[in-house]
């Protein structure tokens, strides 16, 4: 077995919920006086239960793990699972509450691109500054300078102040510095989310060779499963501050996909939802939405998404259709799906309609939609009867075992069109 370079032992990190103190000395004294006198804290928020003892939570809850030289370790988990906290503790940005982390060798961490870059300094000066911040000696940086500049692809601008750089150039330079440090451990927090695709691939290659050829340990946090799949040989899945899985990448990813259930509800209730227009809900009122055949809204690519909508009708409104405006989890508009005519009995009040739409073409990721019911007039403009602005989430993932094409959605978009046909290329004229 190869050398252990990082060892987490019974690691805890506790945070207090809410604001820390009231932020001013006066406020703290006021709160303290109120507590002493047994009165209500004037600084507590209305409706907040005042309990100074229980307002704490563990961002890291008993973490135990070892990382070996040559490991490419992926760390995955939902937002708030503790991934970034783990990296912060490892990078010594914040101290743990309990437990220890033992480290062998130097850590170069990139929790953010271009940490410590000074806008007024040139690219070259910033390489030295950034390298020194990450713990390198000046002579070491000088030795690697050419390599760093070459990798960054911005030779032409290296003597320009970085405040004139585009964000892409900034990232390229920052990554190049961090990747070329002679450190035994490389820590990366989703830095590849920017930069053009070619460069992203180059970075992945660099990190891959850092682990496999140079025997460095790489720790990588990402939400992008395809990068994790490409890069990591081993994965840790974090959930609520605990490691719930430590092992092969594929197993970890499929576990991670399932853990989303708490967010991916199968039932939405719109009864208490404030409508954004007075008219909405007057003629027709959407009450519930259920995803059918699922305990959570997880779908594989190309699966049919079926859901049932319960609605009340107060007035005969004629021909009805439904539509759903689909967005990606980062609020990018993806597309809109419009239903056929809804068949219904206008004399009844309560209705249930089942809709189905085909997810073919949607690339893996988390989406949400807003649901409306409308009718159109003869001029083609539509009249919405009810429109629910609650985000209705579902997730598309790749079936296990299938090899996914690398799909950088920032560039490719979220929809894969039906494959292009290759026509006979010898025209018979």
């Amino acid at each position: 077995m190869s050398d252990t370079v990082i060892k987490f032992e019974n690691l805890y990190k506790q945070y207090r919920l809410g604001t820390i103190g009231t932020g001013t000395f006066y406020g703290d004294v006021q709160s303290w006086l109120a507590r002493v006198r047994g009165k209500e804290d004037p600084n507590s928020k209305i409706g907040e239960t005042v309990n100074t003892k229980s307002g704490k939570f563990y961002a890291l809850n008993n973490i135990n793990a070892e990382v070996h030289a040559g490991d490419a370790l992926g760390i995955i988990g939902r937002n708030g699972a503790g991934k970034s906290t783990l990296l912060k503790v490892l990078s010594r940005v914040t101290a743990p509450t309990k437990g220890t982390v033992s480290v062998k060798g130097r850590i170069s961490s990139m929790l953010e691109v271009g940490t410590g870059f000074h806008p007024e300094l040139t690219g070259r000066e910033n390489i030295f500054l950034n390298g020194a911040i990450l713990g390198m000696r000046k002579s070491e940086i000088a030795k690697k300078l050419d390599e760093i500049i070459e990798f960054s692809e911005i030779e032409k601008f290296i003597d320009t102040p970085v405040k004139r750089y585009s964000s892409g150039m900034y990232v390229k330079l920052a990554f190049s510095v961090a990747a070329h440090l002679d450190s035994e451990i490389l820590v990366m927090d989703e830095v590849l989310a920017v930069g053009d695709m070619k460069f992203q691939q180059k970075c992945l290659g660099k990190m891959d060779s850092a682990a496999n050829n140079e025997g460095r340990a790489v720790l990588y946090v990402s939400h992008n499963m395809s990068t994790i799949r490409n890069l990591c040989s081993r994965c840790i899945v974090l959930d609520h501050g605990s490691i719930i899985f430590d092992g092969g990448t594929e197993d970890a990813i499929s576990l991670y996909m399932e853990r989303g259930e708490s967010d991916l509800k199968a039932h939405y209730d719109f009864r208490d939802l404030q409508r954004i227009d007075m008219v909405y809900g007057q003629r027709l009122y959407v009450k519930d939405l259920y995803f059918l055949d699922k305990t959570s809204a997880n779908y594989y690519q190309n699966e049919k998404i079926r859901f049932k909508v319960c609605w009340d009708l107060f007035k005969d409104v004629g021909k009805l259709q439904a539509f759903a405006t689909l967005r990606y989890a980062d609020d990018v508009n993806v597309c809109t799906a419009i239903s056929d005519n809804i068949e219904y009995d206008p004399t009844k009040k309560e209705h249930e309609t089942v809709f189905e739409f085909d997810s073919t073409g949607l690339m893996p990721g988390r989406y949400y939609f807003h649901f409306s019911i409308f009718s159109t007039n003869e001029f083609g403009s539509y009249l919405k009867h009810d429109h629910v602005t609650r985000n209705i989430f579902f997730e598309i993932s790749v079936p296990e075992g299938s090899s996914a094409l690398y799909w950088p959605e920032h560039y490719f978009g979220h929809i894969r069109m039906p494959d292009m046909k290759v026509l006979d290329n010898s025209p018979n004229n």
Partner: protein
Amino acid sequence: MSTENWTTVIKPREKLFDLKLEETWKYRDLIALFVKRNFSTIYKQTILGPIWILITPLITTLIQTLVFGNIAGIGTNDVPPFLFYMCGTLIWSFFQSSLSGISNTFAANAYIFGKVYFPRLVMPITTVLSNLIQFSIRFAMFAVVWIYFIIKGNVRPNISLLLLPLYLLCSGIMAIGIGTMISSMTTKYKDLQMVVGVLIGYLVYLTPVIYPLSETQGKIRVLILCNPMTSVVEGFRYSFLSKGSFPPIGSLIYTMIFSAAIFCLGMIMFNKAERTFMDTV
């Protein structure tokens, strides 16, 4: 397993007083680069560039000469007022700008401290070194004025000039001590930052910078004597001008003990704050 030689062990608590000098020394290149950065960035895109280092004290001294010397008529122990004020301001501004810089350490560097680790002491040291260089440049200007007045026969240096490093050390150490204390406290209460900004500005009146100690009397004099910077400024000026009096040994010792004590206290608070300040700032 215990035989393994870890390079770093991250633990919840560290020793109360730990300067981490060895580790800080490893980052000496970073300190050098930061100092260089401080100089090269402040004056970028200015026409006069580093000449500003000289202009600022020159203007201050001129205004002091005008206001305190000519209008208010405060005595200067027979020293030409311009030289008197320049001398006091020289050492005082080293202390003051170090102090205000350091007391801002955590607040100003939160963005970088929150992303990457290096010994936090690097920052206060950088501030003092930057100010020391600034001091040296200003000193050169002072020296020209000083030599002019020596030739004219108004003033002369004396043997206590050898204590110059001590004066600088004391004010540097004191600036680090008080500065780190304030900076540690401001991670929680930002009010302090405002208070400090105002207080440092007025502290100059409690120090014999624009007046000689000999001009003071009564309760005010006691208060001024309590200020550990008093003997530094008085001693500094005496060694160059040989006017006034050499500060009593007792008050020098008081200043040294005060500096050492406040430095230790500052370090303890700084160490404590740096561990978790990212969670509170």
